């Protein structure tokens, strides 16, 4: 058997060897392309970003037929942060990329990796509020895409009407409303969702309270960044943790808060199983995508503080487009940025995507017929009662806040303890950033 190897066997052996060697060399090679009239843009995979960027890309390609805009997606969350950092560090970033503004941008070391846009003429129409969120020192790095986002409480309009409740302007009034809802039975006053991948929703009581903190302590953000003020020793700042503890202890939370997910929380709010859901207004995009008519059943108010006369809203900035230094064809990338920072840019966004808040570009108008929650959001902007969230005023944000607030909401940790624990948590990040005073 061994002395006379059959030809098929030998052929098979040779074929295996050749195949193995050959496969290593074949395979389709696809490299990054540059300078051929194609503009590559990396963005996160959320539907909202995708639709906004697609609208901008389509409108731009219509106006400039010789340019092709290609969108590439990446995951969001911490995995997305890793990808953006990796690709910036290895010089592999596409011509432009979409990313968060605020403290996440600071973590990219923008001075070393991004192009400063402060001197560009089209940046003049970008509002100063937004520029503050995408600046490091004197340099400005980003052009806004999308709408302003408010942090506060989404509530069920039908339930408010049925019980004859009014929008609360102080924390006590909010708690009184909760009490009335609980006494009426049938619905949970406050929805909390600590289930799979939804722990971030627990932070709203703390993060969306920043307007009230700043109302009491105008220098809070600077002092916090300089390690002079802390959550534990600033009563106004610790109030966010206390509020969360209060609603938990009063039994206002939905029974299944520990396992409910963000999507299920939104569904429960729409269905009236819960009345209040502390949330960012970009949740309206998700609600509309799942059930377009449900958006009209919801209202919005800012997280109330102590002063009824000064009831204002904490705002979040939308993400922005950034220009990496590694981009070879800077001019065509800047031409696209100029388009985004123009009224044509925001008209393109308005035409294709439902508006959930005002734009950060001067001269951009919001249509008249917006859902009630968006109108309520707009009223805070019209009255000038807004302040940015802490993450846009200070680069310091601890990574464990969501775990800490889940503990407070679940009654595992007291508010005082949580505030001091969070002060410890931010210390690590401040030291990593090399800030002075830590």
């Amino acid at each position, binding site marked *: 058997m*061994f*002395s006379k*190897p059959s030809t098929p*066997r*030998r052929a098979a*052996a040779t074929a*295996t*060897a050749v*195949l*193995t060697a050959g*496969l*290593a*060399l*074949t*395979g*389709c*090679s*696809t*490299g*990054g392309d540059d300078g051929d009239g194609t503009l590559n843009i990396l963005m*996160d*995979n*959320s*539907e*909202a970003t995708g639709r906004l960027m697609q609208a901008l890309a389509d409108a731009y390609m219509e106006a400039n037929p010789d340019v092709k805009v*290609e*969108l*590439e*997606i*990446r*995951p*969001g*969350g911490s*995995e*997305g942060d*890793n*990808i953006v950092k*990796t*690709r910036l*560090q*290895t010089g*592999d970033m596409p011509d432009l990329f979409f990313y968060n503004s605020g403290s996440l941008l600071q973590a990219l070391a923008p001075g070393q990796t991004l192009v400063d846009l402060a001197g560009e003429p089209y940046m003049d129409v970008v509002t100063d509020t937004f520029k503050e969120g995408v600046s490091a020192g004197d340099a400005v790095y980003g052009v806004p895409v999308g709408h302003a986002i408010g942090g506060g409480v989404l509530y069920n309009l039908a339930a408010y009407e049925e019980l004859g409740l009014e929008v609360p302007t102080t924390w006590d009034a909010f708690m009184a409303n909760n009490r009335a809802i609980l006494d009426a039975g049938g619905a949970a006053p406050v929805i909390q969702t600590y289930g799979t991948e939804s722990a971030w929703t627990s932070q709203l009581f703390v993060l969306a309270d920043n307007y009230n903190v700043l109302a009491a302590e105008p220098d809070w953000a600077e002092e916090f960044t300089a390690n002079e003020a802390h959550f534990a020793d600033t009563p106004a700042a610790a109030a966010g943790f206390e509020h969360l503890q209060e609603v938990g202890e009063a039994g206002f939370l939905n029974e299944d808060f520990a396992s409910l997910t*963000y*999507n*299920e929380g939104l*569904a429960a709010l729409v269905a009236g199983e819960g009345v209040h859901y502390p949330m960012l207004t*970009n*949740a309206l*995009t*998700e609600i509309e*995508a*799942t*059930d377009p008519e449900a958006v009209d059943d919801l209202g919005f108010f800012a997280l109330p503080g102590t002063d009824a006369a000064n009831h204002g809203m904490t705002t979040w900035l939308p993400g922005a487009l950034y220009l990496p230094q590694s981009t070879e064809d800077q001019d065509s990338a800047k031409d696209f940025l100029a388009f985004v920072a123009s009224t044509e840019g925001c008209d393109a966004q308005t035409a294709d995507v439902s508006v959930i808040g005002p734009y950060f570009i001067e001269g951009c108008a919001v249509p008249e017929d917006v859902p009630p929650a968006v109108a309520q959001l707009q009223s805070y902007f019209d009255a000038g009662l807004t302040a940015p969230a802490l993450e846009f005023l200070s680069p310091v944000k601890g990574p464990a806040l969501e775990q800490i607030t889940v503990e407070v909401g679940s009654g595992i940790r007291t508010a005082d303890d949580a505030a001091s624990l969070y002060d410890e948590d931010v210390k690590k990040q401040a030291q990593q950033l090399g800030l002075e005073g830590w």
Partner: protein
Amino acid sequence: MSRPRAAGTVSGLIAIAVSAVVFLVPFAFIVLTASKNRSESALRDFSLPTEWAIWENFLAVVQARDYMLLAAFVNSTILTVASVAIMVVLAAMVGYVMQRRPNRWTPLLNALVLAGLIIPPAVVPTIWVLQGLGLFRTLHGLILIEVAFGLSFCVLLFRAFTATIPRELDEAAMIDGAGPVRLFFQVVLPLLRSVIVTAVIVQSVAVFNDFQNPLYFLPGDSNATVQLTLYNFRSQYTTQWNLLFMDILLITIPPLIMYAFFNRQIVAGLTSGAVKG
């Protein structure tokens, strides 16, 4: 006599019922969710859809992002076939030599193989190496990475299995005049068949399901592998559960077919390789 047989039948039926529940119920959930419209799927109930949207969902998933899924299937197939083929042949050679010819370097080589299992890969330095070699953003670069990460496990598998092949066979072949290459490819490799099947199955599933490596080492929409298409429908804030599950369903089918065909060989290969060290 009939008593123990009856008991055996009963426990067998129970085992079948339990495995049916464990494997078929999640699969039924995937199929049901993949057939729902978006608002119904967001509830994630285990229920029949009120209207079946399986065809619409199928089209939506296939057409998403300019037919990305089809390109991804091509990429994943090339990646899996190529990397597993290289892995198996190289590992069989290494395992055979290490088992047959122990010398004073063997402990060091063993340590290196183990290191391949233990030491985690670092992303940025690996990208630097790939960029230096001109292999970054190419499918063959990723194939080499998959081979590097899977090789250690395969070597261990092949070395253990080679011990079960009598050395006399090698000697007989050599007496008959076979050189080293012919000895390996015509005598030893056919005898390794069951462990080859095991290695192929285990590594195919691992490479096909790999998410992290394609994500970092092969960026770009045109380079996507099937696992990356899941991110078309799932994001931090919004998820299209019906399309996500349809995508999962489509991705699950190739490995499922492989298991159905090679089921017996996998079990045989795994157990026979495990007997001797």
